[in-house]
């Protein structure tokens, strides 16, 4: 119980800090960012009233004190009001985020689960086969990890969408066939078809990390006495590998998996941009390009919140599955 209480305090403070950072960041910047921004935007065309309002809201009303603004900001948050988007005026930010979230969670979440499963499986095998030819292949997975993932996306598009027109270049579904998301098998099929390349990108760039982490843990676990004992008892190899070694070696990876699930929403911003995938990442870039600060702040807040929630849940589960974590708080 003490463990949970302590974690709760840490997360509460983190949440407060993240929201405050979101509030203070635009205000802490040197110079008068609001003026610079308005000047920059008027150079590109007329600044609408909505944009002025959004900028003033973001950088603060010069007349009100910082403290009053801060209180106001919290009040709006509690009402669930993240402001109005400028680039999609007059849609509220919450609505835009709500529409984009399922795309990110569905695509990146699915791909992360696939990548985790494959990586853990291969890592278990590579760790089991330590001291064989497999050892020489393991370092090459770092090459996969070092590839910029959006570049992987570009290469995949080049080969599978441009050279051979097997997969669509952009989008989350076929926009010529459907006016918007709907519940039909055709639509689901279209979504799955469009998700192949983005998901492959994620799997390619993240599977190496899981594999490597699992393999190294597996190697250390296999050196533990209880594994030697299990071997001496004459247990089946398969049983030693799965229920003895892998089960324990997996613990850090499970913690990592929880964190990775937290980054599902905001972790692949650039990839979503390459594929123009209608998720949170693309929304964020749209906001950045359109100087849509209310939207940007809202998206950032949602991304942080997801990470926070995922980390909290992971912490709780980890405390359950690994008693050692509860001991040294």
């Amino acid at each position: 119980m003490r463990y949970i209480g302590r974690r709760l305090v840490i997360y509460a403070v983190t949440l407060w800090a993240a929201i405050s950072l979101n509030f203070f960041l635009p205000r802490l910047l040197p110079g008068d960012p609001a003026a610079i921004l308005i000047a920059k935007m008027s150079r590109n065309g007329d600044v609408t009233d909505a944009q002025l309002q959004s900028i003033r809201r973001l950088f603060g009303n010069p007349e009100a004190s910082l403290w009053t603004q801060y209180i106001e900001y919290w009040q709006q948050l509690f009402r669930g009001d993240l402001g109005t988007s400028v680039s999609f005026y007059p849609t509220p930010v919450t609505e835009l985020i709500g529409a984009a979230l399922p795309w990110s969670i569905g695509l990146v979440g699915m791909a992360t689960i696939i990548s985790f499963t494959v990586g853990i499986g291969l890592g278990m095998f590579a760790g089991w086969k330590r001291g064989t030819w497999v050892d020489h292949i393991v370092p090459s997975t770092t090459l996969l990890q070092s590839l910029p993932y959006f570049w992987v996306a570009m290469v995949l598009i080049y080969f599978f969408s441009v050279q051979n027109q097997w997969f669509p270049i952009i989008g989350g579904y076929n926009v010529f066939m459907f006016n918007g998301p709907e519940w039909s098998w055709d639509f689901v099929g279209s979504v799955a078809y469009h998700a192949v390349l983005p998901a492959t990108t994620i799997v390619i760039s993240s599977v190496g990390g899981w594999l490597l982490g699992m393999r190294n843990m597996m190697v250390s676990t296999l050196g533990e006495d209880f594994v030697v004992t299990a071997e001496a008892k004459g247990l089946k190899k398969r049983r030693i590998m799965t229920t003895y070694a892998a089960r324990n070696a997996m613990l850090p990876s499970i913690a990592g998996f929880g964190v990775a699930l937290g980054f599902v929403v905001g972790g692949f911003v650039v990839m979503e941009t390459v594929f123009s995938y209608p998720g949170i990442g693309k929304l964020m870039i749209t906001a950045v390009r359109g100087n849509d600060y209310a939207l940007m702040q809202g998206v950032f807040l949602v991304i942080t919140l997801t990470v926070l929630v995922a980390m909290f849940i992971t912490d709780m589960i980890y405390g359950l599955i690994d008693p050692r974590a509860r001991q040294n708080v």
Partner: protein
Amino acid sequence: MSDVATTTSVPPADPAEVDKGKDETRRVRRPVNGKFIIGATMLSLIVLFAIFGPIIAEFDPRNSNNPVLVPPDSTHWLGTTSLGYDMFSQMATGARTSLMVGIVAGLIAVTLSILFGVIAGYVGGLTDEILTLVIGVMLVIPGLPLTIVISSLVPGRSGLLVAVILGITGWAGAAVVLRSQAQSLRNRDYVSASRIAGEKPLRVIGVEILPNLLPLLTGQFLFGVIFAILGEAGLSYLGLGPTGSISWGTILNEAQAGGALTRGAWWWFVPPGIAVALVGCSLALINFAIDEVINPKLRSAPLEARRVRKAKAAARAQKRADRAAKRQEAKA
């Protein structure tokens, strides 16, 4: 009970112990690691390219008086872009920016992680609580989106500024590890001894603790560099990187905007990605080598497994030979 266990287990363990000792000395005499050699060679080639590439390049990277979208040939070694820029010059100039951003950001990240992690772990108490909280906050706040937000709020960005932003957002993970290491080091006898001898905390950290963290710090620096180079590439690709300079990321950005994908200009977008991957791969390999030095289990376990397997294979071969010999005998 335990007495019995030890006495019975000692004799069979002995030969293995001796064997291990022999192996240990053999390993000392063979200090160079294959992964290290490959990684270091790759890295030095890239660094040499960054230093001398712009000098030997015949064209200015911004010179557009070249034929457009030429595949690699003898004049334009890596082809040209849709604006007629020479890709070799672009890559060479980009190497400087990307490596510079990576190294500066890596240094900043390591410094910050030492500042927060080591001090939190060593000092303990309330300082630890506060610093840990800061680390926790930085760990949770997602790096890339934060970097995107900061970059988008700052109008003119130099390469240095981008490096600073990447460094500030990317140190928390390393600090967590350093904190737990410093915590365990603090309770070692030699550290207690120097503390009791009246050494100031700064000196204890600098002389007793940091040298022991050096391998770890090197690894973290290398990862910081990889992280920053990848981050810079991503930011530049989104058009939020250093303004007005050429980096591997900006090349990718221009390639995407210039329709390199649809026009089949693979020489335009393939090299920057490969270059980033090579840097990352070389640093990761060096890091592997360091890992094997500080974590002997990673090194010895595969060797042991190999030894066991060899012994088993030898036994099997012996058995086969015996059987064959017996069969021969029976025939005779």
